[in-house]
């Protein structure tokens, strides 16, 4: 559904995206994981036809994002990181205008259906400005799928939300996957990537440094990690099983934590840095 080949985006001398290639299969949730400023949003903006790449190419459903931008725009739904709902319009008007922009028929039925889906019944005529953060985020996703897109882009879909509301959004996303929509999301939350994504690409400073199923990526570095303090700095040691990890800890003359590895450890192992601040 999505094919990205040797994508580069330069701003002057800075390479925001540096030779990135990957593909996303139909019906899959693919996540780009990485710290802020890794280039995730830039990739999304190129794929959603807002930015032009410096080099390389990207196709969505076989259409080039530069040459066939119009066709691509018909196939995709976008929920950007910054909530760009029209805050002077009501919930219902936001959906209607979006549908009209996509030349939809049967607008009203679809809008009603999505208002129910996003749990915004009774809020149809509320001005967006007056909605809570979670409601806005739910409406943003509802608006993105209003025109039945084949591919949905979610840029940091739960940034700044309470854990409880974050879970609501996750359920919405899983629900969309069940409906057969291909989803590409970006996140800097480890748990989000592990819970939602079928496959994950890990991005650091514009480069794709690892790609695969979360389980596979974790398996590659070992299943268990020991965290220990060394001269005031946390060090990480990786082990294939709990027994070898315990044996290592027993040999230490200091306290250490043994736990299962997560995707952040994959990032740490490759870059020596952490993702979440």
């Amino acid at each position, binding site marked *: 559904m999505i094919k990205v080949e040797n994508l580069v985006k330069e701003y002057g001398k800075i390479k925001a995206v540096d030779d990135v290639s990957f593909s996303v299969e139909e019906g899959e949730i693919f996540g780009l994981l990485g710290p802020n400023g890794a280039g995730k949003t830039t990739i999304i903006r190129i794929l959603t036809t*807002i930015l032009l790449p410096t080099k390389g190419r990207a196709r969505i459903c076989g259409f080039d994002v530069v040459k066939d931008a119009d066709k691509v725009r018909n196939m995709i739904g976008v929920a950007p990181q910054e909530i760009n709902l029209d805050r002077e319009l009501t919930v219902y008007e936001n959906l209607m205008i979006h549908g009209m*922009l996509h030349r939809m028929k049967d607008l009203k039925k679809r809008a009603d259906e999505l208002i129910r889906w996003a749990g915004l019944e009774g809020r149809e005529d509320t001005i967006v400005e007056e909605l809570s953060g979670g409601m806005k985020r739910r409406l943003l996703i509802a608006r993105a799928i209003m025109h039945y897109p084949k591919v949905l882009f979610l840029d940091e879909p739960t940034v700044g939300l309470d854990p409880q509301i974050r879970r609501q959004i996750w359920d919405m996303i899983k629900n969309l996957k069940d409906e057969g929509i291909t989803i590409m999301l970006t996140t800097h939350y480890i748990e989000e990537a592990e819970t939602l994504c079928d496959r994950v690409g890990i991005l650091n400073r514009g480069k794709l440094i690892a790609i695969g199923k979360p389980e596979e990526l974790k398996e590659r570095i070992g299943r268990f990690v020991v965290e220990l303090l060394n001269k005031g700095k946390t060090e990480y040691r990786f082990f294939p099983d709990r027994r070898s990890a315990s044996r290592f800890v027993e040999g230490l003359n200091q306290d250490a934590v043994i736990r299962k590895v997560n995707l952040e450890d994959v990032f740490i192992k490759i870059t020596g840095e952490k993702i979440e601040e």
Partner: protein
Amino acid sequence: MSFYPVFLRELIVFKRRLFRKSYFISTLFTPVLYLLTFGLSLGRRIQMEGVSYLEFLIPGLISFASANESFKWNAMSVSLGRIYYKTFEEYLVSPVSFSSIMIGYCLSGCIKGLFSSFMIMLVAIFFGYPPPADPLFYVVLLLNCILFSSLGTVAGILAKSYNDVFVFSNFFIAPMTFLCGTFFSVKRFPDWIKTIIFYLPLTQTSLALRASFLKKEFPLYSIPILFAFTVFFYFLGLFLLRRKS
């Protein structure tokens, strides 16, 4: 009709603001203030181009308000949508063409300018000056609104911050509102300035609206000049939209 959602969005917002008392009053406030201060204090005593100053002022105020409001509405809406609220991206990721975006904005800004103009005409009735019956008056008014809403869209696209809109407005719109025969007769300026001012769009609007209003000979050449400016700003906006995205 793919411009319609862009147009409709602006219209909904306009309608919503219209029902706020403060907005309604502020739209009326400036022109009424001008009419009262200039018109009533000077109006009955001073003659300008052979008529009372009040009579001279009303068509000038209509040109000023239609240009100013059309410009301001679009410059604000486009720059805010682009820079702060990012709602403009909704248009960019949808299959709506740039020309539809331009047309949608030009027409919606135009409605705003027409509204302000009609408000002044309404106030003018109370001063004893009914709206002119000449259809050319309304043709020029409409053209002027479209022209300045295109220019407003251009300013909104060019703006890098909200502040830029005010800078643009100060350097381009404000001088035009004072120099282009809106408040004072162009005839009083030195020749070389007169020539430059003559070709500014707002001068053409003032001249044409005033001729119509005072039932004098209508300057037919104004229409093609205004039309040419409108087309120019429309295509400039289109060009900038393409380049910026």
